[in-house]
């Protein structure tokens, strides 16, 4: 596991906030004192109440993966790819450049280093894609890397062009066939695994997708790491709200022990 850096809490400035595709948006934030992050780490974002009004509703911050981050004078700029779905992300979607967004992070433990020289298979579904970009960048430097992206329909896909730019091998599947092959991204994974013995699988997306990926990898004796998406209140291990059941009994905290886990650690039956 990569060691998490010490997280910070600050008001970040919105640099850019634009439509990405369908319901998805791309948010760029200037974060003073940003210490940098590891692939797979996340932040808790509090969509600033409009104007200087202290926000009491929606109350909780929203966990979002750090899609990309780069150092900037005395801090960093982080990029978030997010899907506008409910009340909090609707507020986030309306944040204008120059406005402030509360940031706590980087949080959690990210993906392990892809083993050098061995094939890496990255599988992203829906908003889970956003957790994989920096991992793909790192994996591409260490060995043959294939990225498999899945979504319901073409307009739900995020970041496709960025992944292409990384020079990784890219495959896309949509359930309605509007982009790439028709079907589920886990079917692409099945093929890929067949052609890549000793591959490691890195998956993020809907729980059923990750569970299926875990089964497929296990069947091939491949290592599989998943990044879970549980509802969170704090993001740093104090509310115990994000607990996921462990295969051996008891719980892990997704925000503190994860969000990335070796697939075998999780009791998938009792998670859903």
């Amino acid at each position: 596991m990569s060691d998490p850096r010490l997280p910070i809490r600050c008001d970040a400035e919105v640099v850019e906030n634009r439509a990405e595709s369908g319901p998805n948006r791309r948010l760029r934030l200037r974060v003073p004192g940003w210490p940098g992050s590891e692939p797979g780490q996340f932040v808790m974002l509090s969509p600033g109440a409009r104007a200087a009004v202290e926000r009491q509703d929606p109350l909780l911050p929203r966990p979002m993966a750090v899609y990309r981050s780069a150092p900037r004078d005395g801090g960093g700029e982080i990029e978030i790819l997010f899907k506008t779905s409910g009340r909090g992300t609707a507020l986030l979607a309306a944040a204008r450049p120059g406005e402030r967004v509360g940031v706590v992070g980087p949080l959690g433990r990210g993906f392990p280093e892809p083993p050098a020289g061995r094939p890496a298979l990255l599988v992203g579904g829906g908003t889970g894609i956003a957790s994989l970009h920096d991992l793909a960048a790192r994996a591409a430097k260490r060995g043959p890397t294939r990225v498999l992206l899945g979504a319901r329909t073409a307009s739900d896909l995020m970041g496709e062009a960025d992944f292409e730019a990384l020079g990784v091998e890219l495959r896309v599947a949509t359930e309605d066939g509007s982009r790439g092959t028709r079907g589920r991204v886990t079917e692409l994974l099945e093929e890929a695994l067949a052609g890549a013995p000793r591959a490691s699988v890195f998956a993020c997306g809907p729980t059923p997708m990750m569970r299926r990926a875990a089964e497929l990898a296990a069947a091939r004796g491949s290592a599989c790491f998943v990044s879970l998406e549980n509802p969170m209140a704090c993001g740093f291990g104090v509310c115990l709200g994000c607990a996921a059941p462990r295969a051996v009994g008891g719980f892990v905290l997704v925000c503190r022990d994860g969000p990335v886990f070796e697939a075998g650690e999780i009791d998938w039956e009792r998670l859903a």
Partner: protein
Amino acid sequence: MTASGVDTTMDLAGIRLGNPVLTASGTFGYGLELAPFLDLRRLGGIVTKSVSLEPRSGNLPQRIAETPAGMLNAIGLENVGVEAFLKEKLPALPEGVPVVASVFETEIERYARVCERLAADGRVAGVEINASCPHVKAGGIEFGQRPESLAELVRATRRASRLPLLLKLSPNVTSIAEMARVCEGEGADGISLINTLQALDVDVETRRPRLRNVLGGLSGPAIRPVALRCVFQAARAVAIPICGIGGIGSAEDAIKFLLCGASAVQVGTASYLNPMAAGEVADGIAAYAVRHGFARVRDLVGALELPG
């Protein structure tokens, strides 16, 4: 004392606090989790996650849900147990910040035994007895919901240690004043209130409760007016000090509780949104005292002016 020259010290049931702002049990872990964000010595005190005699596991997901200006939780009193707390958690906390250990159990004798264990450790400044847990299946009706069982609980924990004894009450009762009097009568040194309001939320798409446990505890700004009412009523019913809790996220919020008669306050859910909240509340109270010409924060306690 603060830079501003205001005297922010407070005595809570025999616990000396540098300022009246503590962190609420279950919202600050065992303290260390927030160290990256906040110098813990800026806090008046830390109330740690409720511990029981043995380690306990919690509820299956979902454990939390967002509600209007609030949140629901049904964690299930997951904790490391008193032994691990004393061995691993407590020693890691910085000297100079009072630690109040919160205690939860399902039987009165076990409550008492946890208190005895805690009393053996000089680092524990006081105990807070969590007499309510709306979201735990085990037990059913809460200790804090019946005067008889509450009296028994106070008596047993009072006997168990000489440590300052705070009783944390459930707001889910007909008369908070009656419960406060029971605590005072049985020798509690102070009262903490409120714990969460018993509540429920539903997902209309799945037609299921949002929480796996069905029922949960409501916290956050939404419950602040109810918490203020409880503190106001309890302060008029008893002479022992009160620690106000419920939806406190700003100095303004905290001052409302002091004015209603609380000698100290606890910041809970707000720490999730902003891990530095408790420290900012403490600073803000001092600033308010300066602005309004109070030499001692203490003088704000119960200073509410009632209409003639």
